[in-house]
């Protein structure tokens, strides 16, 4: 199984409540995926600034002087906000790649969850309500976000095996389903220079889309290409700096429901996930068509 939720806000008045709305949706999807949970939240980008979200299994030791150490390493001002096992590091946008590289030497055991102007990813093993509480997701604001509750099938129940997967700046992907040709696609992508953290099938889908975008494809084209090159069952929700997209495989046995009002576009594996959203009673609710790409961007 697995559960997916997503929310793209059209009405800026709702932005302070994004985290709270996504948390409610995520917890409702607990019985589709009780083993791990994750969330990607996109805040409004600040000009010239970028964020690096890192995770450590020894946060006290790793995070104590991380902002200072990283600042020295990349010769720039870095501020850090620790939340449980994750830390968001804010730094100048033009030093983002340098910071990513520096992290490997400074904290070799820490993992980069996400990097970009707007994105922050938090994910851990555990019940969705506990994961959301640890990272205080309900207090976060933002323009759009994606959440995932995992019932593992293709790889181990670990922090790095949880979704969302981020394989490019401000990009992320969550998946309900399983891919059968991920090993061969991973081989091709490795030859093309993409790097992988796990043996997970979903990470391959994320890297596949990131690679297409690197090659100059538009988001819609990159998502369209999953229909021809990826074999297996999937409902994907993809996040970018400006919005999110949805695509289901042609068989479409993995469920998906969408709702749209003047204030938002919402995605849920089930309608249940969306019942507490404002104005859902009068929303346009529909099931996305198989083999059809949908995306919303601002």
């Amino acid at each position, binding site marked *: 199984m697995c559960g997916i939720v997503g929310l793209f806000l059209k009405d800026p008045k709702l932005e302070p409540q994004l985290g709270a709305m996504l948390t409610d949706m995520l917890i409702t999807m607990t019985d589709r995926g009780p083993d791990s949970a994750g969330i990607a939240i996109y805040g409004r980008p600040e000009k010239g600034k970028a964020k690096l979200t890192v995770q450590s299994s020894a946060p006290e030791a790793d995070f104590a002087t991380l902002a200072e150490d990283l600042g020295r390493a990349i010769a720039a001002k870095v501020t850090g906000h620790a939340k449980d096992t994750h830390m968001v590091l804010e730094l100048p946008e033009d030093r983002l790649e340098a910071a990513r590289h520096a992290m490997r030497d400074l904290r070799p055991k820490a993992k980069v969850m996400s990097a970009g102007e707007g994105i922050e990813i938090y994910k851990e093993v555990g019940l969705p309500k506990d994961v959301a509480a640890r990272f205080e997701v309900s207090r976060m604001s933002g323009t759009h976000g994606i959440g995932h509750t995992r019932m593992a099938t293709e790889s181990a129940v670990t922090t790095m095996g949880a979704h969302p997967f981020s394989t490019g700046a401000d990009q992320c992907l969550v998946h309900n389903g399983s891919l059968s040709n991920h090993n061969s696609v991973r081989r091709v992508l490795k030859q093309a220079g993409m790097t992988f953290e796990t043996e997970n099938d979903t990470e391959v889908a994320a890297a596949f889309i990131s690679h297409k975008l690197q090659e100059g494809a538009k988001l819609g084209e990159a998502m369209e290409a999953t229909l021809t090159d990826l074999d297996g069952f999937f409902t994907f929700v993809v996040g970018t700096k400006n919005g999110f997209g949805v695509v289901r495989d*042609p*068989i*479409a*046995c993995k*469920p998906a*429901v969408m709702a749209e009002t003047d204030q938002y576009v919402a995605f849920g594996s*089930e*309608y*249940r*996930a*969306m*019942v507490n959203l404002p104005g859902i009673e009068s929303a346009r*609710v*529909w*099931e996305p*068509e*198989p083999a059809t790409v949908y995306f919303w961007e601002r």
Partner: protein
Amino acid sequence: MQTFDLAAQGLRALNSTLHGLKGQTNQTSWEIINPKGAHAIAVGLDAPVDVTVRGSTGYYCAGMNKQATVRVKGSAGPGVAENMMSGTVIIDGDASQYAGATGRGGLLVIKGNASSRCGISMKGIDIVVHGNIGHMSAFMAQSGNMVVLGDAGEALGDSLYEARLFVRGSVKSLGADCIEKEMRPEHLALLADLLKRGEADHLAKPEEFKRYGSARKLYTFNIDNASSY
């Protein structure tokens, strides 16, 4: 009219209350409020009662229904009226995948669209869809009737047995062994009755439909195909 608040009273209490209605009962009319997309609402009923759900339902609403009339004043999630035996299920909105799957009898009416695999392996149920149906609908359908006022998706009636399929709009493609068949007077009479019972006689006329059925080449043993079996 008995009102049951699902959010306050819970699913198990609802279904056990409805299962307690056997044979003749004075509590023939029920209203379920706050369904909030919950799973397995009004599953396994076996009494001539009328149940109205005020909102949208999740997986398997009205599954295995016998005798009862269940109305959903919203949309239904996957597997609505799955394996229905008798009675009537009416969905005001859309239905998700495999609506009416394996149904053995009764009538399922979907006033919006049904998505993929509608009526898969149906075995005697009648299904009337006012809108469109998705791909692989009526796959291996054995008996019963499916009426679609709108369009049908890919691979309609693949590996069909003896169910009758009536589609008014376009069919994206026919599945293996499914062919268009002649519409005879008895089919027009059957359709007129189904449209009336499916609350669609004001929306379409029997003459506007095409009939599809099995070519009977796949499931009938044929010595020339021996190597394919």
